[in-house]
């Protein structure tokens, strides 16, 4: 039986008066990687922000564990085991790596935080040697490791990642994709991924959505998306809906 983790119904959202998302229907399945792809400006990042409560929702529902969480404020969503990683500014630059990891476990009790940091450092051993460094001094890749490590510390069930490979070298991007798969397989995390690097992201995903101009252009398994006849045109944003 498929357990639906998050179900999105007729979602309309945007910033102030600028509507970005139009009537989105989607679902995210437990323990799987769901990837949203689409050209720039198609609203895929806005989609993640909306799920986490950082935009204005005009109408629609976000059902999580049988509850509509469309209007739950962000800091409470963090307590519902939903973690969201923004694309930029996703670590605290003035805090050390260690403090960043600790603060990620803000809502957990002390022993639990220790345990989770241990787990995060096992998946991201790259962080072990730089625990005392300020996050602001890290390289792009290290910062991304830290951000994902922080998400792991949070002991979340759902992980929403906004373009984790943006501005990284292809080699590093490959490592990041590997870690994402590892997180799913080792901890059964449910992952919702937004990626510019559509092809590679879909190759590691289970399900996918193609967004165009704030609407769902098509959906299906990752494989179905990759083989869709209009995949390339839509990804470049050349063809209208």
């Amino acid at each position, binding site marked *: 039986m498929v357990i639906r983790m998050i179900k999105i119904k007729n979602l309309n959202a*945007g*910033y*102030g*008066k*600028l*509507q*970005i998302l139009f009537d989105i229907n989607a679902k995210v399945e437990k323990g799987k990687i769901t990837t949203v792809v689409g*050209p*720039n*400006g*198609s609203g895929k*990042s806005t989609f993640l922000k909306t799920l986490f409560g950082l935009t204005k929702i005009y109408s629609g529902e976000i059902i999580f564990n049988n509850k509509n969480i469309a209007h739950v404020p962000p800091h409470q969503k963090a307590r519902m085991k939903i973690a969201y990683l923004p*694309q*930029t500014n996703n670590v605290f630059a003035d805090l050390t790596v260690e403090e960043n990891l600790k603060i990620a476990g803000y809502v957990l009790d002390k022993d639990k935080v220790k345990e989770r940091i241990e787990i995060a450092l096992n998946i991201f051993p790259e962080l072990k040697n730089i625990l005392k460094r300020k996050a602001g001094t890290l390289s792009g890749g290290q910062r991304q490791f830290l951000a994902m490590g922080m998400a792991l510390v949070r002991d979340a069930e759902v992980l929403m990642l906004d*373009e984790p490979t*943006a*501005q990284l070298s292809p080699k590093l991007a490959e490592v990041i994709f590997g870690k994402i798969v590892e997180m799913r397989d080792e901890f059964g995390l449910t992952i919702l991924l937004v*990626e*510019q*690097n*559509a*092809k*590679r*992201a879909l190759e590691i995903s289970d399900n996918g959505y193609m967004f*165009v*101009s704030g609407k769902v252009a098509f959906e299906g398994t990752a494989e179905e998306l990759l083989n869709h006849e209009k*995949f*390339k045109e839509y*990804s*470049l*944003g*050349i*063809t*209208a*809906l």
Partner: protein
Amino acid sequence: MEILRTENIVKYFGEFKALDGVSISVNKGDITLVIGPNGSGKSTLINVITGFLKADEGKVYFENKDITNKEPEELYHYGLVRTFQTPQPLKEMTVLENLLIGDINPGENPTTALFYKKWIPKEEEMVEKAFKILEFLKLSHLYDRKAGELSGGQMKLVEIGRALMTNPKMIVMDEPIAGVAPGLAHDIFNHVLELKARGITFLIVEHRLDIVLKYIDHLYVMFNGQIIAEGRGEEEIKKVLSDPKVVEIYIGE
């Protein structure tokens, strides 16, 4: 004929090199489009061109005059105006007032303002023009509404209308149709086409190729602060869009 040229623009934000030697050339009367993934430096480029950011290295020429790092208010007098990514209407002011700000009236000087004869003729001209533009943009019924009460798309139109008030030589637009419904988005670009016919040059940053592709003359693709592809004319633009390098940055290989 070239109207705007940048030579090897470099711009740092702290350690991060947002622009890494960008050289573009914009022809007079063309609609030139710059695309690229998020964070590739498009907005930074037009902020440098319009004086809102200062380049660390490189030059900008407009009609062969060096305009590098000039203040925005100076560039306006060269005939270079811009619109913003998030519309920046003067919210508490009416649509008509918003348009009138697009042109400079001698009555803006306090000493002249007191002598109505000195500025009324220009004001009459401006009001006539503003209403013509409002008609052209199909906004005339909204002239006395506060700009803050408009929809996002209407705000974008008001911004364009304001840019038209001075007969600029060139309009730089930062995502003019982001968040605009497709119908209105095409309307906006049809207006752009009409203005192009009147000799105005456009430099536009916009993601929504599905809508804008058929309107443009010249395309630049940016990635990681560099120009990675360029094409002029329908054929070349098509070629650019099927260039594996471009496809790769959009889809991943």
